[in-house]
């Protein structure tokens, strides 16, 4: 009983101050009066009831107080809409950007693979491996519960009617080993998935389609199972449909169907050259499930040993002497597997960026709340003197902060949503359709909401504490502008302003470095009107052509097209010009690839046909470009010979940077370079046609190799691109389409666009990145300016009396202005220095962590425009921000000010 009474008293004490003032004594007294009676009549249950009752009422009382605070806060904010609006916009921008970045990173890097069982157990090697190796990995039962091979981004020309009528559509899918679905743990929604027992080599081809294929192309027809399709001209039967949401492993490349590797090479030309059995045909990705209790590190070490053993069995393997690690495992259960070591770097970089944005936004809010609190000191003092508790007032002020923060949170969500819509409309100029998920994640909502509440509470608490600390008597006696103690030196507001200036300068510099770096590495110009070049792609092999027939077609096609009146020149290429490089090669200038002193250069490899550079109006700097004869070179099949040194050297054209990188100032033409087993004779050098993204080690080095029959027989995912230059204004395209149709009406022509449209697309991606980073930088700048203006305005208001007295004693306007500006300028200078140092430090750290940023930072860190310009820009803006409110100080009327007392 005494215990219950003690709790009762404690709870009665906890009621809000206002409630206690009126009912506190009665409530306490009543509890003491009835407790004996309650215990007698109801026993222990009654005592519990007594305590529960007061606890519930306590909560209800606080809730109703909160409701009132909220109403009051909304009213107060409506009364000063400018303040509310600036706060909401600051926080909204900050949170919108944060949420957008958060959900993008989450969706693209860390989200578990949708639709698979236990994604945490899935791993995949960083690099493609051969099918044979995957079969060997599968045998390591102590390490892996399963290992499947897949190859994504495989194009199929699909005709829905089995009789071959109807236009084929180009659909991307995966070639998978039959145990693929078992390893991923995916059950079909209809029919069956592929499995090793039912899908054997030589069986009638079976395909599994995704829910998307079923809905989009078969109208979710209930008879889809058992229906036959023509895939690349061959018949195949649909045996199953995967569940909704399952998009395959590595889903950023869109996958609509799964074809087993047991089909013939006639159906999937990717399977030609016996890739399933050749030990060194690294044509597949492996997706593997760890055995129970095996960590990713021990699996990596185990597979490394296995790989080393397998490598050693092949005498021609160049990696035999290599001491380095041969297998690096990635988290296969994520949407975009990135090296595990990279994750913290990415997170750290984004964390710094987002942290800066948020800090600036929140500092702005805190600063404004502080200024507002100071302006309301008198009101608060009056409320305290008529009996409001300090706690109550703090709660009131914090409610205002939380309301602003929550409204800012909503604004931020709207912004993030807008950004995600914008981003999803950007298409990448790549052969395969990308399936990037830009949708906002519910976690992002929670994240933004939690962030807004926390920042609302956090950044209104300190100002609220400070505001309510005022001494009553002096506050009521003085005017509304009361001196804050310690303002001149390290007042919180000054620290905030310095922090804000430093933060926004850091933001401006880092984003500026990225913007300049990116735009430097993405600067490509054509020497002609890009509107006059058309790009189109065909893929005869996937339209059912035999390799020989395809070769014959490509042999005569350029001439036939050139014969059309308005066409000036025609060239073929394995990829559209200025697109993301299709592959890279490690080149050495030494004749012997096993030479220990060789210097390796990583170059981007582009496969181009005869007359490619002429069609682009590029003059050769030295040597010649490829001719039709080069296209007919008999290349040995990829890695077919056991001893690679006998392979026929291919001609190659280097760009200027690559020539300089490999041969210095010596003449590159006539020299030989080698890559693994293949060697190349340099026949020409061409100007750097800058292209690509700064995503690989050194993307500006390019080697061009000729398009040969191998590419015709097994075209890349984007088909073979035909480049056509036409006379300006002429509609060459109609003629071209007619000509191709007259050769073969069933030939599927796709990806038709002008070069300028293509370039627009390639720039779109960069433009979004630039807009985002640039936007973040400008945003920081604007926020910092708002903050500074607020601080100066506040300082002027606070010192009205002082200024009035000074002016009454004879100070001139300029002197007063200088007095006010001096403070602001000092803050800006301190902040700028700190921000500059901070930005440099961050750039150093990021560059040293990864080459990803090093490229763009390297070209831009020493850019005088930015290094000098950014601080100047910030300084100028800051001065304007100080000056506008400071001007008001000069307008103070000394008589009026002094009379106000």
């Amino acid at each position: 009983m005494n215990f219950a009474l003690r709790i009762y008293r404690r709870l009665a004490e906890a009621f809000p101050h206002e409630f206690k003032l009126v009912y506190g004594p009665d409530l306490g007294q009543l509890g003491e009066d009835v407790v004996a009676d309650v215990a007698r009549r109801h026993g222990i249950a009654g005592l519990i009831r007594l305590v529960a009752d007061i606890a519930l009422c306590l909560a209800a009382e606080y809730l109703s107080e909160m409701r009132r605070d909220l109403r009051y806060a909304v009213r107060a904010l409506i009364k000063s809409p400018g303040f509310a609006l600036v706060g909401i916009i600051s926080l909204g921008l900050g949170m919108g950007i944060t949420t957008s970045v958060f959900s993008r990173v989450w969706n693209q890097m860390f989200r578990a693979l949708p639709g698979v069982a236990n994604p945490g157990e899935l791993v995949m090697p960083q690099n493609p491996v051969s099918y044979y190796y995957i079969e060997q990995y599968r045998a390591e039962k102590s390490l892996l519960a399963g290992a499947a091979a897949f190859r994504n981004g495989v194009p199929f020309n699909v005709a829905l009617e089995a009789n071959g009528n109807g236009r084929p559509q180009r659909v991307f899918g995966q070639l998978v080993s039959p145990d693929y679905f078992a390893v991923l743990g995916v059950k079909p929604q209809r029919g069956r998935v592929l499995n090793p027992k039912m899908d054997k080599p030589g069986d009638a081809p079976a395909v599994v389609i995704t829910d998307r294929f079923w809905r989009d192309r078969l109208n979710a027809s209930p008879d889809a199972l058992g229906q036959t399709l023509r895939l690349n001209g061959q018949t195949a039967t649909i045996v199953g449909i995967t569940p909704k949401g399952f998009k395959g492993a590595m889903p950023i490349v869109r996958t609509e169907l799964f074809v087993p590797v047991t089909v013939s090479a006639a159906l999937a030309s990717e399977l030609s050259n016996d890739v399933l059995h050749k030990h060194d045909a690294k044509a597949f990705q492996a997706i593997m499930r760890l055995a129970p209790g095996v960590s990713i590190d021990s699996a990596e070490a185990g597979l490394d040993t296995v790989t080393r053993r397998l490598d050693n069995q092949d005498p021609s393997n160049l990696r035999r002497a290599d001491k380095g690690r041969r297998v690096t495992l990635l988290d296969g259960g994520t949407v975009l597997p990135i090296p595990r070591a990279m994750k913290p770097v990415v997170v750290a970089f984004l964390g710094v960026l987002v942290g800066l944005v948020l800090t600036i936004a929140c500092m702005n809010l805190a600063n404004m709340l502080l200024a507002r609190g100071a302006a309301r000191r008198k009101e608060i003092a009056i409320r305290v003197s008529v009996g409001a508790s300090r706690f109550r007032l703090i709660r009131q002020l914090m409610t205002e902060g939380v309301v602003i923060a929550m409204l800012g949170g909503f604004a931020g969500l709207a912004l993030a949503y807008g950004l995600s819509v914008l981003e999803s409309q950007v298409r990448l100029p790549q052969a395969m359709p990308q399936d990037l998920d830009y949708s906002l994640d519910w976690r992002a909502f929670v994240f933004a909401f939690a962030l807004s509440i926390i920042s609302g509470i956090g950044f209104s608490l300190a100002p609220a504490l400070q505001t309510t600390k005022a001494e009553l008597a002096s506050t009521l006696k003085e005017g509304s502008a009361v001196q804050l103690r310690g303002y001149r030196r390290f007042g919180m507001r000054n620290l905030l302003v310095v922090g804000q200036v430093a933060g926004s300068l850091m933001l401006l510099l880092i984003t500026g470095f990225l913007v300049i770096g990116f735009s430097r590495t993405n600067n490509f110009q054509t020497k002609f009107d890009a509107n006059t070049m058309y790009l189109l792609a065909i893929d005869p092999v996937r339209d059912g052509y035999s390799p020989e027939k395809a070769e014959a077609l490509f042999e005569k096609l350029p001439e036939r097209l050139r014969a059309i009146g308005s066409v000036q020149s025609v060239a073929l290429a394995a990829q559209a010009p200025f697109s993301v490089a299709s592959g890279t090669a490690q080149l050495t200038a030494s004749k012997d690839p096993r030479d220990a002193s060789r210097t390796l250069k990583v170059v981007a490899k582009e496969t181009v046909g005869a007359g490619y550079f002429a069609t682009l109006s590029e003059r050769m700097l030295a040597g010649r470009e490829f001719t039709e004869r080069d296209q007919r070179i008999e290349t040995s099949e990829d890695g077919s010979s056991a001893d690679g040194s006998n392979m026929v050297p291919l001609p190659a054209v280097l760009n200027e940077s690559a020539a300089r990188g490999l041969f210095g100032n010596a003449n590159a033409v006539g020299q030989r370079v080698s890559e693994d087993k293949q060697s190349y004779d340099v026949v020409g050098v061409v100007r750097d046609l800058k292209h690509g993204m700064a995503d690989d080690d050194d993307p500006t080095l390019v080697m061009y190799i000729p398009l040969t029959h191998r590419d015709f027989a097994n075209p890349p995912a984007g088909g073979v691109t035909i480049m056509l230059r036409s006379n300006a204004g002429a509609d060459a395209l109609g003629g071209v389409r007619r000509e191709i149709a007259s050769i073969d009406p069933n030939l599927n022509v796709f990806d038709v666009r002008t070069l300028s449209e293509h370039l627009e697309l390639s720039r779109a991606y960069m433009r979004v990145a630039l807009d985002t980073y640039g936007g973040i930088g400008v945003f920081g700048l604007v926020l910092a300016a708002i903050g500074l203006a607020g601080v100066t305005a506040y300082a002027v208001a606070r010192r009205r009396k002082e200024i009035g007295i000074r002016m009454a004693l004879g100070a001139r306007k300029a002197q007063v202005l200088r007095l006010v500006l001096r403070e602001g300028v000092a803050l800006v200078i301190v902040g700028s220095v700190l921000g500059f140092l901070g930005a440099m430090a961050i750039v150093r750290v990021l560059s040293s962590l990864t080459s990803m940023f090093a490229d763009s930072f390297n070209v831009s860190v020493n850019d005088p425009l930015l290094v000098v310009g950014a601080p100047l820009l910030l300084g100028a803006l800051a001065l304007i921000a100080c000056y506008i409110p400071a001007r008001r100080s000069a307008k103070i009327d000394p008589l009026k000010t002094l009379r106000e007392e």
Partner: protein
Amino acid sequence: MADPDLQSFLPLKTQWFHIMLSLAGEEQHGYGIMQGVLERTGGKVRLWPATLYGSLKRLIEAELIEESDERPAPEVDDARRRYYRLTALGRRVLNAECDRLQELVRAIRVSQIMVTE
């Protein structure tokens, strides 16, 4: 039924009804109200202290009762306690609620007769 102002209060919450009923006759303090309700309902309805004072606070905010500044005779006065009484509005609301309940009881009786027959 005429006064729409009254209707917005009906039906009254049980605690409110009991409190107002206790105040119908005379001014009371919290303890008195609680005892009164206990006695009137034969110990079936107990107003727990926090609920009681929470309800009093809200009744005052709704202007159905008010704090009394008149004190009873000194020999029964408990100086530490606050006394409450019905306002004019409170009295009308209480009457309307009583009418409503009587109406209800009559309706129940009629249907009971019909059922038992």
